[in-house]
Structure formats: C-alpha cells, structure tokens
C-alpha cells in the first residue's frame, strides 16, 4: 500500500504527459476504431482516477451538464418525432409536390435535408431520408447518387445554422451561453450564401441527371407512378392520427421556445423538459422500453468522457502552450478566426470534430477573455462553428451522418466510395470555407 502511494506521488510530475497520452489514446480510438471510443475513455478515466490525476469531485465538476441535458432533451424530441412517423408523413407530402420532376425533386429533397438538419440530428435526418430518396429515384429510373450527395452536403450545412443542429454547436453554445437565436442571427447570412453557391455548383455538376423532363412522357409517367406507389405504401402503414398531431403541436411549441426563449431559461432545460412533456403527452402511443433503448446513451457517455478528458488537460495545464502560441501570433479577431476556420475546417474532414472543438473551447476562452485579441471576440466562436460543421463535408468519414448515408445506401444497392465522395466533397468544403472567409472579413471590417 505504501509502495503504491509512493508510486502515485512519484508520477505527480508527469500528470501533464499522462493526460496528453490518454487523450491521444482516446482520439486514436475514435479515428482508427481499434477499440470502442467510450470504452477507451472509461479506461483512461479509471486509470487517471487511480493515479490521482483528478478526484471524483473534480471529475463531476468537469462535466458540462447543460450540454448533456440539451443533447438528451433533443434526442428524446427526435425519437418521439421519428416514432410518430411525422417526418415520413411530411416527406411524402413534399414528394407529391414534385409531380415527378427530377429538378424539383432535387431542390425539395435538398431543402428538406437542410431544414430538418437545423433542428434534428444529422444522423436521424439521414436515416429517414435516405431510404425514401433511393426508393423514389430508383423507381423513376434516376441515379440516386446526385440526390444522396446533395443531402449529405446540405445536412452538414444545415446543421451549422442552429444551436442544436450539430453537436459541436451544442458545445460552443453551452460554453458561451449562446442562445438559439444568437446562432441564427450570426450565421444565417454565411449559411444562406454558402447554400446558394453550393446548390448552384451541384446543379451544374449533376445537370444531366436532374434536368427537367417535360418532353419525355415515359419518364413523367414512370415518375408519377412511382409517387403513387410510395403514397400507397405509406397509406398502408399504420399511422395514429392522434400521435402525429400531438407530436406536431408539441414539437412546434418546443421549437418556438428554443428560438424565442420567452421565459429566459436555459436552452438545455427547454429541450430536456420539452422532451419529457412530449413523452408524457404521447404516453398512450409510446413504447417506453423501445423509446429508452433508442436513446443514444453511447453518445451521451462519449460527451461525458470528452468533458472529463478536456477538463483534465485544462487542470494539468496541457492546453496553455496552445493558448500562448495563438496569443503570441494573432492579435485580431479576423486573423484568429481565419486560423480557426481553416484549420478546423480542413481537419474536420478526416478527424472527429467534436474532440477538436471541445479542446479548442478551453484554449480560446482565456485567450478571448484576456483582451489581447482586438475586434469582436464572438466572431471567433462562429468561425469555430463554421469550420467544424462545414469541414464535415470534406470526406465520407467527416461526420457520422455521412457514414450513415454511405452504409444505408450500400445496403440498398447504391455504393458511394470514399474517393467518389471526396472528389466533390472536398472542393465543396473549400468553396464553403472561402464564402465563410468573405463573410468573416466583411463582419470584422
């Protein structure tokens, strides 16, 4: 026992190196997947507790419960919405509007993806949309790939617009008490501009596949017949009206509260209690066992573990050198924003952006609070948000939603290879970052 205590004391000088090593181990597990990332985190945390690098009280204080409750709340809202088939019903109505025209289909699917991604997790949005997209396009004799690629790209762009659209925004928003409307007010211009430019690029690239077919009766006929089949298939599935209406109304109220926050309470509470309220209101229709099984506890544990690891790095001073480097080289918010935007943006295509953003938060917070950076410090946070979200378009492994699309599509016979996506995804990421740069430059003038 004494020998063990002595050992613990002797390695006290190496706490910083040990914390960095464990962080590298965890990030490697995320990238190379040789072990489950939550398991890797649990092992590191357990050992760090054993080595007294932190104690249990400190560990609890490191966890940002605001973020956890916000994520949990949104997961509950999304799960109830999915279970009620409200999203499927909405998608069928949207599909009917296209009247079989490939260009309108392309536009509406892209717009739907963008809109849903602003409020729901990208992964959920894609899980609902991908089978529908492939089903419709294949029945119409269209190539599903342009539609799927556009959806992948716009799910990441849409997710950048709101506090809850992407986990990285949840981290940034929680750390800085940014409200739902703060994100929208500060990001709608760059996101709208990027959307407009990228949609134009995709239209030009895929024009041959998506051009209108008003002079080809056969294709119009097949398209309309496909729509009729999809509508019939949907009508044959059982939908509980009461469930859909209750979900739609309560979802609308939750979203309104998130955006306008009339009672000036934490967004995390709105999301969490909104989820609980929706669960209560739809209790007659929900299978609670299935509901709780479908909550992504793995992701919540991942975030908890991430907060602890970053907290430990902060505690042992491992992040201070990064802060010193940044403060030494950059004095204006524009310069700092550019470094953050492009570094995070280009890296996010290949590295998990959540730990990247989580690590940057305790680096940037003291830097921006020190007053050494001139100009509006808030713009730096939005540059981080844009870099992390838009960077996810860089490659198929850039975000979990991208992987979900590729895997689901492959199961349905549509193979999207890494290089196939990279050839369009990476240039689009660069174009998006250029547009974001122009916006940040104008705002910081």
């Amino acid at each position, binding site marked *: 026992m004494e020998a063990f205590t002595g050992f613990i004391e002797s390695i006290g000088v190496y706490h910083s190196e040990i914390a960095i090593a464990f962080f590298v181990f965890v990030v490697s597990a995320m990238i190379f997947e040789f072990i489950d990332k939550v398991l890797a985190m649990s092992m590191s945390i357990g050992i760090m507790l054993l080595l007294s690098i932190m104690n249990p009280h400190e560990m609890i204080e490191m966890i940002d419960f605001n973020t956890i409750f916000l994520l949990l709340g949104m997961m509950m809202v999304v799960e109830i919405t999915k279970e009620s088939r409200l999203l499927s019903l909405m998608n069928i109505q949207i599909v009917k509007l296209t009247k079989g025209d490939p260009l309108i289909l392309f536009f509406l699917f892209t717009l739907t993806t963008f809109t849903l991604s602003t409020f729901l997790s990208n992964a959920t949005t894609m899980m609902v949309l991908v089978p529908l997209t492939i089903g419709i396009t294949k029945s119409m004799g269209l190539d599903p790939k342009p539609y799927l690629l556009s959806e992948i790209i716009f799910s990441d762009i849409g997710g950048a617009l709101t506090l809850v659209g992407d986990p990285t925004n949840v981290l940034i928003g929680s750390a800085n008490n940014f409200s739902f409307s703060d994100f929208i007010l500060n990001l709608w211009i760059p996101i709208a501009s990027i959307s407009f430019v990228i949609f134009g690029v995709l239209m030009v690239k895929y024009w041959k596949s998506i051009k209108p077919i*008003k002079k080809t009766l*056969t294709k119009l006929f097949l398209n309309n017949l496909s729509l009729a089949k999809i509508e019939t298939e949907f009508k*044959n599935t059982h939908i509980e009206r009461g469930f859909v209406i209750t979900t739609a109304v309560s979802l609308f109220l939750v979203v309104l509260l998130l955006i306008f926050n009339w009672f000036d309470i934490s967004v995390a509470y709105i999301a969490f209690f909104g989820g609980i309220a929706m669960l209560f209101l739809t209790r007659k229709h929900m299978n609670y066992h299935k509901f709780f099984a479908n909550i992504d506890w793995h992701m919540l544990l991942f975030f908890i573990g991430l907060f602890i690891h970053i907290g430990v790095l902060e505690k042992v001073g491992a992040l201070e050198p990064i802060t010193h480097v940044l403060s030494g080289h950059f004095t204006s918010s524009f310069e700092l924003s550019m470094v953050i935007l492009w570094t995070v943006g280009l890296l996010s295509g290949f590295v998990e952006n959540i730990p990247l953003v989580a690590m940057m938060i305790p680096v940037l917070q003291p830097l921006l609070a020190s007053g050494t950076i001139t100009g509006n410090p808030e713009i730096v946070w939005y540059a981080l948000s844009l870099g992390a979200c838009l960077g996810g378009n860089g490659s198929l492994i850039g975000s979990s939603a991208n992987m979900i699309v590729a895997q689901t599509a492959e199961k349905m016979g549509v193979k999207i290879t890494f290089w196939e996506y990279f050839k369009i995804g990476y240039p689009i990421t660069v174009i998006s970052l250029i547009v974001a740069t122009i916006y940040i430059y104008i705002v910081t003038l």
Partner: protein
Amino acid sequence: MFSKKLLSSASTLFRESEQIVGTRDFCFSAIKSLSSAITTFSGSKEELREELKNMVYLVKNTSPRISLLMFMFFKIKELFFQYLDENPNVSIREAKQKLKFIIEEVRVRRLQSFQKLIKCSDSVIEGGDVILLHDASHSVFDILCEAQKKNIYFSILLAEREKKKNILILRFLIDNNIDFQVVPEYLLSHVKSNITKAIFGAVTINSLHEVVSDAGTGSIVAQMREWNIPVYVPITNDKFSLWKAKEHHTYKTTKHKISDNLEYDKLSFSHDRYKTDLVTCFITNKGLLSAKELNDMYDQYYKDCNYWRRKNEIDL
C-alpha cells in the same frame, strides 16, 4: 428505344405496385399517372404522338407483362391516333385535353366491366358460408364487401402465408369487421370439413387455358378439388392475356444463408399456374361460367385479338 436499365426499373416498379394494390387498381393508377404526365408534358403534338407510341412499347416490354394494362394502353393509343388523323389541325392543348378524356373513358369502361363482375357474383356467397381466402385479390375483397352490404353473414378462413401478403388480407378483414380465423396454409387438411367454398384471385388466363395466380395458390386449389370444395375465381375478360404463353415457368435463384456453413439456393417464382379445369366456377363480367365456357370464351377472345396483336406487334 429504351435502355435495359429503364425497362428493368419499369418492370420492377410495375411488379411491386401490382403486388401492393392488385392488378386492377394498379392499372387504374397507371392510367391516372399517364393523365398526370400528360398535364405536365410540354412538347408538340407530333412529339406527344411519338411519346405515346413509346409508352405502348414500354408496357409491352416490361416483365411480367400485364394484359389489362396493355389492353388499356393499346385502346388509348388507338382512339387518340384516330382522333389526330380525323382532326389534323388541332392544337397541342386540344390534343392533350382529348387524350385525357380518352383515358377517362377507357378507365370508366374497365370500371363498368368490374362492376358487372361484382353484380354477377350475387348468388355466390350464401349465409353461413365459411370461405377460404389465400391471396389479397381486390376483386375477391369487393365481392365479400358486396355480400356484406346485403347483410349476408359469412366468415373467413385465412390460409396463412408470407407476412407481407397476410398483412394486406388481415387489414382488409379487420377494417371491414369480417369474422375470420387463421390457419397455416400447409395445415388445411385439419379444417377442411369447415370450409364451404374457396375464392381465389387471378392475374390472368393464358393461352394454355391456365389460371395465372399468386404463388402458392395452385396447390391449395388442387387440395380443394381433392376435397370437393367448390373453387370460385373472379376475372374479367379484359384481363385475358393477349399473347401465346410459354410452357416453362420463369423463376429466379436466390442464395440463402442460415449459418456460416449452411447455405443453399432457393427457386423463387413470381406467379403460380394451374389448369382452369380445377375451378368450379368463374365469376366474370359475362356471368358465372364453367371452366369449359371460360375456355371457349377465351379462345374466341384470343382469335378476335389477332387484329390487336398484329397491329401492336405482339408475338402470335
């Protein structure tokens, strides 16, 4: 004219749609889709004429072919081309309007044909009947609904098969408050004494005097005959197939895997075929017919359609 990919997609779409809603409703949905397509079409009159020819080519070359659909499209094309020949100076707008009117006429005629079939089924179901069902035929469903409207009490014995088809049948029975019991299709011998009659749907009658039906129906029909249980099959004459049937069945082989070392090939057939002689009575739009009467009607219809086949280049 069309790529193999487009024909393959169209075939899959037709087949899957037909499986969901049945042959009749699928054909009506198809001509409704044609009508919607015409509304959106923005080409010239000559382009419309050419496109309609292409449409007929498409429905002729999908696999499997659906005779009612082909019949309706041939009729639409014939009437429209006749109109264009008689009125060469009509505008594209007028031509489109006329085409939509023709489509509606063809639809109504076919609907009337089905309504006649339902009327002819009046005496088929009697009070107290226990009727065996096996497929999700909408013609059969309509006959049952008609009997229900007349307050004739009957119950259903459902020969259980694959889940997808069962759900369609069960949904119909539950939504219409029809009493039913379910028995696995391979254990009907245990309940044969309860069955008073069996009604099965049909996709078509072919030139070999065979009923083409859902997969699995053939063996059940044979069992019913063995046990002297009357078998009824509703079918309108516009569902008769217009071409010479192949002797062999079309099938595909799919691989199935139970475990790492247990893999096997399975033959899958899209339809079943059995001789019309096995059927006690055909319920048609021309009345209740025996197998021989139906065969004679088919032969006459096939001969009358020589003109159609020549004109539309269908294999004789």
